[in-house]
């Protein structure tokens, strides 16, 4: 199963894919290590938010994901 990482909006352009799977367990540092430098940089941007299973984290550094969890990397919303 691993952890699914979903790239939203322009982050999927940067990553060159809509999602990828990374071995569990996964922390914030582990995620950044696993991403390409450019994507990791965009993920670090304070305007980029992170959700685990649909819950947006107030502090990305607290990220912990296990088997089957879904992490979403969310750039600033454009609005409707």
């Amino acid at each position, binding site marked *: 199963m691993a952890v699914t990482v979903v790239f939203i*909006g*322009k982050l999927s352009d940067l990553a060159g894919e809509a999602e990828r799977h990374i071995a569990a367990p996964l922390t914030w540092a582990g995620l950044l290590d696993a991403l390409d430098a450019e994507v990791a940089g965009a993920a670090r941007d304070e305007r980029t938010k992170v*959700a685990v299973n*649909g819950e947006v984290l107030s502090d990305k550094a607290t990220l912990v994901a296990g088997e089957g969890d*879904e992490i979403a990397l*969310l*750039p600033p*919303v454009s*609005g*409707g």
Partner: protein
Amino acid sequence: MARDVQLLTKGFSPGKALGLFAKAHPEAGGIASFVGKVRPDKDVKVLQLIHYDRLTLPGMEKLATNIEGRWQLDGLLIHHRTGHMRPGAPIVLVAAAARHRRDAFEAVDFAMDHLKSRSWLWKREKRGDTWHWIEPRDEDHEDANRWEI
């Protein structure tokens, strides 16, 4: 209160939805509504709205709950498109039925301000052959900041 919150993946008719909404709320003294469309501006050929299943519709439901707590409404409708849209196509319809006019107006106004700046939607538009990502306008943030949210 009757609530109808939908994230739509295909084109829709705001007039038809509004007609059904009005029929569903014969008891309301008034219905305020807003329809937003893709502006036939510049050289935009296509607009794409991207949503994230685990956040976008749940976020719209939370918005509806928030609105129900703030204003006395008989009914609230929020329909929002996602996917690809051509200039002139409807993107969003918000309608509120209420006994008192002011409640209906404010609920729709608030919903639109929230949807335009804080909803979990990402937008890009195709000009010529190139896609461009769109960030919220400062104006939209200012509109949203008028409310204590």
